[in-house]
């Protein structure tokens, strides 16, 4: 036997010993000096010494112990210190007399139960009365002076999991059942239970009467709950409920503490918890020593709340000292703070803390009595033990944000709606978005867009005017806007060099002339306008911040800067519907179909042009810094900016950021958009995204199941002909031919037909083409 000591105290310590086998149950004798451990392969008595367990007796004797020794439960008599009872897994109830002179202490054997006996219980005051509860659904009461049971109680239902004599009512016992019921019986009336109620969903594994309070019964079940019932009233009432994290295998009230009880669980969770039932959300104390599920817990002495004994499947027997318990409350955050979606703020804290400030408000200058009061909390050291841990009720305040206040997300919605992500040349998009950001009073984002435009726009397309810095027509600040004055000279020189490169590029690429001209015009006037750009200090600051990088890389700018139409080149492959067989039974949404056609054609054209000059593109010198910036925005929670920039920059930046991060940003942004019900924007984002995982988002649930219009059965095979009645179901109301492609129908009268036909028809007429008289509308 091994011993371990943690902290020594006057009369005991946290200690444990190894058993030879997993324990199923433990019980302690009345004077708290010995404990019996029972299991499938163990049945021993240990003495509780001050510094360890000492094995006193092995009750499992014989070369081949019979199944009668395989114990599911054990109980030590609380009046007669030599008397023990065990419940065997084979259905036997055995009593043991330690006073017997021979090695075999077995006294009586009752084999009346047909199935495993789950529980035995001695009467708390009557010496000879023993009660058992079994898997076969019966409870039996034995008089130990007789050879047979004196009465049998039939639960009329499934297995009995626990039986407990009431501490106060001589004749009453409670039984809990596998089907969730708890029954109360009078020991004198075996014919019928006194009352019955459903306590849990699923089996009730255990119950325990309150040692002091007559009417209280605690029950624990597979549904992970511990409930305390008040039985003193006419109708059984649930007064407390504790939610644990695993099925509750045992529950034991703590002595001398009215509201405390200890629990252990059946599976997965190995800890023992002591709860204050008035505070059901956090355990008062936990004992975390066991390495496998705890199977038996018992308070060492019926009037001492500080010692808990436990046995476990990990083959150890522990004595836990209460002062060594861990207190989850110490680690728990006593205050909670949380923002709601619309900027509301909820704040929970101890009530006394919450009321104090308001009283300050009322009375004026009332101060806290002392610093202590401001510490929230649990008066562990306080001598009044009955109040320990109990007083913590918290108040929850919710501060609602005013509509449209700065805390709100209006800017987000407006930004999402006004940002342009595609459809225009890159420069214009940036410019537009910069304006949007500025309008919404977000200068940093605005500057970001401007910077992006500068960095990635084709700069000095060989405009002469760029060098002269004088341009009449344009109005957009470009490259030179961050050039600042001291840079302008150098810039001019560089632009000369660049020009030649640009000309080369231009020659090789006629496709982009339009765009080049466009930017050409807008290019040179920048410095001229710089003074008017109305950038505030912040802008300047942020620009300066990026200057070094910009300067270094500048003279290579032109090469990468041909106006790539911002449309994404290699759009992911066609959406799924295309792959379906033409005879697909689904009627695909028109959106899906149109999508799978158009992008294919237009993109392929563009990607050709892309191929033409991508080899000429130089390394992207801005990319690292842009990447850093995007990450910064995403980190800040402004995933909107990150994603918008990502989309607008498209090919320019995409390869720099790894797919997963991109996908993550997209998902977050789309999620946000959908929360704000910005469906259109979110769909646009999905469409424009280049991640495969994202683009397929709007391909989900596009299937529409239809029933045949003749026989009302589901159309399983083809969309237009019914398998069962062999009728063509979807006939165009205008031309009376079968519709095999897009079928549009009125939701009011459910007539419809070819999209084009119906559209044309309804241009001329208000009425349904089928002649049903319904006033259809085509929108």
């Amino acid at each position: 036997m091994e011993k371990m000591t943690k902290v020594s105290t006057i009369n005991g310590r946290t200690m444990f010993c190894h058993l030879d086998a997993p324990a199923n149950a433990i019980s302690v004798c009345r004077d708290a000096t010995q404990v019996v451990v029972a299991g499938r392969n163990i049945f021993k008595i240990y003495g509780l010494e001050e510094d360890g367990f000492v094995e006193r007796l092995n009750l499992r004797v014989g070369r081949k112990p019979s199944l009668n020794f395989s114990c599911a439960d054990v109980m030590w008599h609380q009046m007669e210190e030599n008397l023990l009872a065990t419940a065997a897994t084979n259905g036997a109830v055995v009593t043991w007399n330690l006073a017997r002179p021979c090695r075999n202490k077995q006294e009586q054997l009752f084999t009346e139960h047909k199935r495993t006996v789950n529980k035995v219980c001695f009467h708390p005051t009557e010496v000879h009365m023993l009660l058992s509860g079994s898997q076969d659904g019966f409870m039996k009461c034995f008089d130990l002076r007789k050879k047979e049971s004196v009465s049998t109680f039939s639960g009329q239902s499934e297995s009995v999991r626990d039986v407990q004599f009431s501490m106060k009512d001589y004749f009453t016992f409670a039984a809990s059942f596998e089907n969730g019921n708890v029954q109360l019986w009078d020991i004198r009336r075996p014919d019928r239970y006194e009352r019955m109620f459903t306590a849990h969903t699923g089996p009730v594994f255990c119950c325990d009467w309150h040692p002091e309070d007559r009417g209280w019964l605690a029950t624990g079940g597979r549904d992970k709950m511990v409930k305390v019932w008040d039985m003193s009233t006419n109708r059984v009432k649930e007064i407390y409920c504790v939610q644990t994290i695993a099925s509750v295998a045992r529950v034991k009230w703590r002595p001398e503490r009215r509201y405390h009880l200890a629990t252990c669980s059946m599976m997965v969770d190995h800890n023992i918890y002591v709860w204050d039932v008035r505070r059901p959300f956090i355990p008062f104390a936990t004992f975390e020593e066991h390495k496998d599920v705890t199977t038996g817990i018992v308070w060492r002495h019926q009037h001492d709340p500080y010692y808990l004994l436990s046995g476990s499947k990990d083959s150890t027997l522990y004595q836990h000292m209460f002062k060594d318990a861990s207190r989850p409350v110490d680690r728990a955050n006593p205050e909670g703070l949380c923002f709601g979606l619309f900027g509301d703020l909820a704040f929970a804290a101890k009530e006394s803390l919450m009321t104090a400030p308001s009283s300050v408000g009322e009375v004026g200058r009332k101060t806290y009595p002392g610093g202590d009061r401001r510490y929230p909390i649990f008066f562990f050291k306080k001598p009044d033990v009955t109040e320990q841990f109990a007083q913590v009720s918290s108040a929850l305040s919710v501060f609602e944000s005013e509509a449209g206040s700065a805390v709100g997300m209006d800017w987000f919605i407006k930004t999402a709606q006004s940002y342009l992500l595609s459809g225009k040349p890159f420069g214009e998009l940036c410019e537009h978005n910069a304006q949007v950001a500025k309008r919404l009073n977000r200068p940093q984002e605005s500057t970001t867009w401007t910077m992006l435009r500068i960095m990635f726009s084709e700069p000095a397309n060989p405009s002469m005017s760029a060098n002269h810095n004088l341009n009449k027509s344009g109005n957009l600040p470009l490259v030179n806007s961050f050039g600042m004055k001291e840079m302008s000279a150098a810039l001019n020189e560089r632009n000369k060099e660049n020009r030649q490169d640009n000309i080369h590029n231009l020659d090789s690429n006629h496709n982009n002339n339009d765009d080049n001209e466009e930017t050409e015009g807008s290019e040179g006037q920048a410095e001229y306008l710089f003074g008017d750009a109305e950038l505030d200090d912040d802008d300047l600051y942020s620009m300066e911040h990026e200057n070094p990088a910009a300067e270094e890389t500048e003279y290579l700018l032109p090469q990468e800067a041909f106006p790539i139409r911002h449309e994404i080149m290699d759009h992911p492959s066609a959406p799924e519907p295309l792959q379906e067989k033409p005879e697909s039974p689904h009627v695909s949404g028109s959106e899906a179909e149109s999508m799978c056609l158009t992008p294919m054609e237009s993109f392929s054209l563009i990607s050709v042009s892309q191929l033409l000059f991508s080899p000429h593109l130089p390394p992207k010198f801005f990319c690292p810094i842009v990447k850093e910036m995007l990450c910064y925005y995403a980190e800040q929670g402004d995933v909107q900016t990150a994603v918008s920039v990502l989309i607008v920059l498209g090919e320019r930046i995409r390869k720099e950021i790894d797919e997963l991060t991109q996908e993550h940003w997209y998902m977050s942004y789309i999620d946000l958009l959908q929360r704000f019900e910005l469906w259109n924007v979110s769909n646009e984002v999905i469409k424009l995204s280049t991640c495969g995982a994202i683009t397929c988002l709007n391909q989900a649930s596009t299937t529409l199941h239809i029933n045949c219009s003749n026989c009302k059965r589901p159309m399983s095979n083809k969309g237009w002909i019914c398998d069962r009645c062999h009728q063509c179901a979807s006939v165009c109301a205008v031309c009376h031919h079968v519709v095999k492609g897009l079928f549009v129908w009125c939701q009011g009268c459910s007539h419809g037909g070819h999209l084009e036909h119906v559209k044309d028809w309804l241009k001329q007429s208000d009425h349904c083409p089928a002649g049903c008289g319904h006033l259809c509308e085509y929108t």
Partner: protein
Amino acid sequence: MKEEGDVDIPQTLPSGPSAFIPVEEILEEGPAQEMMSEALLSDGRVDHVTMAMGLHSSYLACFLRTQHALLQLDGPLPLSWRYFIIILASARHQCSYLVQHHTAAFLFAGGDETWLRGLHCAPPKIQRLQTLNKLLAHRPWIITQEHIQELVCPGAEARWSLAELIQAVVLMSHTHSLVSFVSGCGILPEPAQSGDQVQPCSPTESCCSVRDEAKNQQEWSEAVNEVQLLMEKMRMVQHLGEEFTQEEMVTRFERARTESLLEPADVQHSVLPDCVSRFVVDADFTYQDFSPRGEQAPPTMRAQDYSWEDHGFSLMNRLYGEMAQLLDEKFQVVCALTYHTMAMHSDVDTSTLRKAIWNYIHCIYGIRYDDYNYGDVNQLLERSLKVYVKTVACHPEKTTPKMYFSFWRQFRHSEKVHVNLLVMEARLQAALLYALRAITRYMT
């Protein structure tokens, strides 16, 4: 027993859902009708399994609910994966019926057609299930926490999360037990299924002869006597609490378990059709008598130490809550299912008989109840029934019509289907218990 002998089995290739049960018998039952029309509405068809189970409508409801939740509702695994796992599991028992049935569903759920070329074409993650599938199907008691660990925390890429794993485990064991039902009831291929369908058995050869024999008057009265005898025994078992030494109990458990029931003739190796074999690796691995007496054999599992009600449910509830509830309900329904009838008698308490079948299956899977007297199994289950039950549970692919017709000759078909339900659920629970125990050990 109605004049069963007069009902003619179609002599040609049988039509209807089952090769064993006359179609009239299945269709005449009423209360399941509603359930079936529900199934029809949701799936567009009523498959043969559903029709045969329709003989026990209260069970059917539970079964359909569970299967629906398992295959259709939210879960950690993608739909197509679920079907593919089912295909693998049914292939393990060479059940081409289920393989074909779910191949269609797999494709419909958007599964990748190339996977169907064989297990080697599936993603490595699925391939790693192979061992567990094999063990669950044939010798679940070998499953240890190492098997779980291998899947759940490898350094490699294709790792399973516990939630996914548990769904896969339920899928596989559900399918294995369903195969038992399919074979046990001689379910015939769906009319739509065509192609290289192998007959689960050749129904024409023996069933008629067996039936003809049953018509023989003398045998008939013998059969009637058998029923009476069985009922007598049940009464005896119920009321006589015999006393046994522990040795006696253990011996009985051992005897019940190891009894050699398979006639050598049954052990012929048929060549697997290609559509099935391509999903099977190590096809020679089959059920073997659980032998704890051997040196490295695993110890018997004690029902009291790891039971579904206490432990299995709690763990499953944690990892896959809805399924735990559904399975629990299903087990309860199947254990409570009775009509208080036995062949031509009514108002019979059949609980001992049902218990014997249930415990017998757990026994051949190495699960022992301390509080059960395995002598009862030998008392109540006649040899032909044991042969049938053990074959259906352990080697479903070897079930023959002869076996089906030779036990309980006087009983109704619906009662035989009832036996199949017990076999199926007991088998499912046994496999789940072993898998869950391994997971529990892995977690602690």
